[in-house]
């Protein structure tokens, strides 16, 4: 990051900016800062200078984000400023009532559940929570849930089912936690039970991958009538780092692994893993969180309208047919861009 540590305009850069500037965003960031500075000058009409700069920025954003590699998308999906569970709940829901506890072991803050209104729909929202600053991240275990998190999710989904509330899940986890306690308390069993139960829940279930779709930990709240995915989110059978360390015994080849795993929204749409990709604002959700929240709210309402209007039996039949056909009769994808990774 050495070359990114200085701004071409001021020569300064805040530590936060340095930490959150993705390598491929550096030129964009410099432009954005220049625009901010011009705007901050009082009482001078700089429209003549601003407009070309803004056009240039937008062109650059469209250019850079129009051809992100798989690994760059993974980095965008993990961006610290990307909207998370709390921002979506705050921005698109009314009367949010969080509900805690799995009634079996304890409370897992990596998994958040609660009642809310989205538009006209009264729903249960379930989602991973990663946390923002260090203390919160630790409390949320960086979004890696334990069995009690998955059991809490299931307990609340059963509650929603009893009272006819549709379920919306927001997926954003690097994976379910791999630890001693998690194994002792049956991580595999907790996830397996959720996946099974979600296939037959009587109420509409809408799942959305908003950031990281980390394997079984994501799928543990990811089975439903429809699965949506934000444009720069990723969804994968294993993390790129984990895959690289197995295939090449080298976790730093995550970039190659990300390309090979076909974990991006466009590929997953072709593979039938997701049903719809929700476009992100120009330059990614982290650049315009409010616009992202608004766009997702619109998509959720559209799908809930459709799912709620369906006959419940027909909805369950379609859900089963969707699950049952996953991976069947798929046309092979084109080879990944950038060709094959070099041998180890």
């Amino acid at each position, binding site marked *: 990051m050495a070359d990114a540590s200085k701004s071409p305009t001021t020569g300064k850069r805040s530590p936060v900016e340095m930490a959150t500037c993705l390598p491929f965003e550096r030129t964009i960031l410099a432009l954005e800062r220049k625009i901010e500075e011009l705007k901050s000058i009082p009482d001078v009409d700089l429209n003549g200078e601003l407009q070309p700069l803004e056009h240039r920025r937008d062109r650059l954003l469209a250019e850079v984000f129009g051809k992100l590699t798989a690994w760059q998308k993974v980095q965008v999906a993990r961006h610290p400023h990307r909207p998370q569970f709390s921002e979506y709940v705050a921005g698109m829901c009314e009367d949010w009532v969080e509900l805690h506890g799995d009634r079996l072991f304890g409370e897992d803050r990596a998994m958040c559940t609660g009642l809310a209104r989205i538009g006209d729909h009264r729903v249960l929202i379930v989602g991973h929570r990663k946390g923002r600053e260090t203390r919160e991240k630790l409390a949320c275990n960086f979004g890696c849930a334990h069995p009690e998190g998955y059991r809490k999710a299931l307990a609340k989904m059963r509650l929603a089912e009893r009272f006819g509330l549709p379920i919306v899940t927001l997926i954003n986890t690097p994976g379910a936690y791999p630890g001693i306690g998690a194994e002792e308390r049956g991580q595999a069993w907790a996830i397996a039970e959720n996946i099974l139960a979600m296939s037959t829940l009587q109420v509409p279930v809408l799942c959305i991958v908003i950031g990281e779709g980390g394997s079984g930990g994501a799928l543990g709240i990811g089975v439903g009538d429809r699965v949506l995915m934000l444009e720069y989110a990723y969804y994968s*059978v294993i993390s790129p780092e984990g895959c690289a360390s197995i295939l090449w015994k080298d976790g730093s080849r995550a970039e190659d692994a990300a390309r*090979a795993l076909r974990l991006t929204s466009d590929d997953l749409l072709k593979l039938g893993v997701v049903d719809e990709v929700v476009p992100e604002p120009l330059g990614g959700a982290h650049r315009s969180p409010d616009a992202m929240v608004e766009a997702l709210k619109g998509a959720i309402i559209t799908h809930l309208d459709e799912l709620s209007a369906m006959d419940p039996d027909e909805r369950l039949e379609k859900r089963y047919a969707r699950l049952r056909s*996953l991976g069947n009769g798929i046309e092979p994808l084109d080879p990944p861009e950038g060709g094959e990774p070099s041998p180890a």
Partner: protein
Amino acid sequence: MTPFFRKKKDIPLGLWMKCPDCSKMVFTKTFEQNQNVCPECGFHIRLTAEHRIQLLVDEGSFEELASDLEPRDVLHFNDRESYEAKLKRNQAKSGSTEAVRGGRALLDGRPVNICAMDFGFMGGSMGVVVGERIAIVAEDALERRVPLVVIATSGGARMHEGALSLMQMAKTSAVIAKLREAHVPYITVLADPCTGGVSASFAAQGDVTLAEPGALIGFAGPRVIQGTIKRTLPEGFQRSEFLVDKGYVDRIVPRKKLKEEIATILDYLLPREVIEETPPEETPPEETATERVGGEPAPEEPASEEPASQATGEAVITPAAKTDADGESKNDVAKEDQANDVRST
């Protein structure tokens, strides 16, 4: 030595063999006659799917389903070797086209459907065809209303088929959910090792869950856990006995007794009329099958053409296990290690 590593798990050739666990020399024939369990220490050697089915079903009764489905490389996955080449190599080595085989059979005279996985085929990893075969055999069990027995051993979802492998967890679970609703008994037998996406889906959904002694069973593999928590794992962690202690496995059953125990358990789970009326020699026709289940409401019939069309239809994508390209050249410790990593966390 770390508790979760075993030295050697494959069956060595030759007149005499050394038990991979206790290192005693045993006459190979004796070993084989003992279902490949060490007569000295009781260590259970890993078996092929075919071998496992053979040990459980009545001779000549196995009728394989969906064996025509073959894995495909939908992602163009390529690490040190292309996925296609890896599949061919594993197919040649194992004599199977995929890491699971399943079909109809008789178990001590009882009609059942059975699936067995093969850890020797890309670490028993689950890709689209593995998921599809299990789903087809399970749906057939539902239609025939006969119990399903699955012997699960796998490193997890297969990386080489990406998220499609992950989705097989959802596919298989959806079918198991239907078995549950219809009260069709489902027995799982967890064999060494059983981790990742398989342990976190159909393997953990049995009405009754059995395990072979000493099997490694868990969500994350030991190496991943150790790498995460930076601590040595307790002795016996994630072994069958540990899972019984923690309340996740009903019984540990030695291979020798497996058939007998499953039969006994099924006799409790099946409606009384079925046990008394089923002619042991043949699979009853479907109408009788429904009656046999007595007062059970008819299950939601899955579209009956669906399994058939899937069985004959385009095969599916295939996954890739994470077992390494050069797995054979590695020692078995490394193999197991890798296998554990195939898991989808």
